[in-house]
């Protein structure tokens, strides 16, 4: 053990290495978390001094139709988005796991949207979904499909937002699956083939069970992220249309209350409700994992 690794000199070095991070984290993360928590029990419009109002923000929240509607839209988004991306990305990952020429090209291109910023992707697809001049309607019309008002009307706007989100996140989720697929031992498939298992049997009896830990992780990430969906919902609906007024999710509602109405306390209360919701759902998932997640060591 070197001389500096004892006594005061050691602590001086610990402090030296830790100070920037500890100080910064305290000021820019821990302090904001604490102040946001106290704000949730206050009424503050940024101008007059904040006023402590107890649980009033939460009471108002429980009676706020905008909050319930945002929660409903968020859940609807989740119900449409998660199963689509969960299944499509699994398919893509199985494809990417084949030893075929050209697989790398597919992997590179499906990851391009992951790297692009949400602002770019939102605007790009907003233009694609333009009912008159966009790219999406002519082929659909040619197939005889009646096209909706896309980003002008609430329901179709949500569908458009889901399509865009699946397009953007597909490559990301597939790469997560791919890690799990590559960890599955090839000898298992060989043994199954010798026993005469069909590809379908191999997929459902080997791939799926052994992939459940990855699926579990993917599901947790997807839920945490999609409860916080913001950019695309903020940017995509056409300005001043019915969709713009009605398609609100929890985070857009928080942002609107904070920065459009200057209701800092109320918005903070809402953000904590969202946090507790995410936390509870993650907790339930962790408890339920034993029922379906298969770990090899068991």
């Amino acid at each position: 053990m070197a001389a500096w690794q004892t006594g005061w000199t050691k602590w001086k070095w610990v402090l030296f290495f830790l100070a920037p991070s500890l100080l910064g984290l305290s000021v820019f993360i821990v302090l904001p978390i604490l102040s946001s928590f106290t704000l949730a029990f206050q009424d503050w419009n940024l101008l007059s001094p904040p006023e402590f109002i107890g649980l009033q923000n939460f009471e108002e929240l429980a009676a706020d139709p905008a909050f319930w509607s945002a929660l409903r839209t968020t859940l609807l988004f989740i119900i449409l988005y998660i199963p689509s991306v969960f299944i499509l990305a699994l398919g893509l990952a199985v494809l990417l796991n084949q030893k075929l020429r050209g697989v790398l090209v597919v992997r590179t291109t499906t990851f391009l949207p992951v790297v692009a910023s949400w602002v770019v992707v939102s605007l790009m697809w907003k233009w694609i979904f333009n009912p008159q001049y966009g790219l999406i309607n002519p082929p659909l019309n040619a197939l005889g499909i009646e096209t909706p008002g896309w980003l002008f009307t609430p329901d179709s706007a949500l569908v458009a937002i889901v399509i865009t989100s699946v397009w953007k996140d597909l490559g990301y989720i597939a790469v997560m699956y791919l890690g799990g697929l590559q960890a599955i031992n090839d000898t298992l498939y060989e043994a199954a083939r010798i026993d005469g298992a069909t590809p379908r049997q191999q997929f459902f009896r080997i791939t799926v069970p052994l992939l459940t830990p990855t699926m579990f992780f993917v599901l947790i990430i997807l839920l945490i992220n999609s409860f916080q969906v913001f950019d695309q919902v903020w940017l995509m609906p056409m300005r001043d249309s019915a969709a713009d007024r009605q398609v609100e999710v929890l985070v857009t509602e928080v942002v609107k209350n904070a920065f459009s109405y200057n209701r800092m306390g109320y918005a903070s209360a809402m953000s904590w409700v969202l946090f507790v919701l995410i936390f509870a759902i993650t907790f339930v998932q962790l408890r339920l994992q034993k029922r379906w997640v298969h770990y090899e060591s068991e």
Partner: protein
Amino acid sequence: MNLSRTSPQMNIKRLAVYLLMLLLVVLMLLPFAWMISTSLKAQQYILETPPRLIPDPLTFESYTSLAERMDLARIVFNSVFVAVMTAGGQILVSAMAAYAFSRIQWRGRNLIFTLYLATMMVPSVVLVIPQFILIRQLGWMNTYAALIVPGLFNAFGTFLLRQSFMGLPKDFEEAAFVDGANPFTIFWRIVLPLNMPAIATLIVLSFMGSWNSYLLPLFVARKEEVITLPVALATLQAGPRALTEWNLVMAGAVITVLPILIVYLLAQKWFVQGVVSSGIKG
């Protein structure tokens, strides 16, 4: 088994797989192609029905009128500066902390580290409002500090590098200590160079996060002197009663997305690793 590989049935399957792959590539590239194509059209030609994928006539008009409307060079500089400073600063801060958490034994280490991990559970939406208030109170509105400093500190960077530093055998340092090197020399000369993969992953992740960041910058940096590309791009959409000039918006989108796509194509491995390791949206 070998015979069946060349059977007609197998060939059809193969063809189907390749068609599927082609379809995927087209679906992924077409929106980008449409973005570039629109950016190369003059205003009156974007309103053609049915839409034309190859611009005819092709013009750089939207780029020049965009440059007339906003100080493009300045905005690009802002984005580059903020992303580079954020990535560089975050690496230094995180690596130093990771060193203290992995290579030095001290009482309370695990407790503090657990507290670090606990902060990672708080979603960014909870942080946006108090960080906005803090920036306002510090007098940092519309400054680079507002865009850079909050991004420097997150427990994830420390966590990622600590995992990597832990794997380093002790012998490397012991030899240096015997030679009289101090911990900073060890950190700088031995630990950092030997953990380049983890550091590269974090650099890429942090650069990308900063380059694409929208929510907080939207409310703390709107003046042209400091505005970053995504925020400036979103302002190009016209208000309710005006017509959005989509060729300009798409030109702005190309300028915003092209640099990060090029960096991605050059350093693909680190992007994939970084995105997979972080998981949670920024």
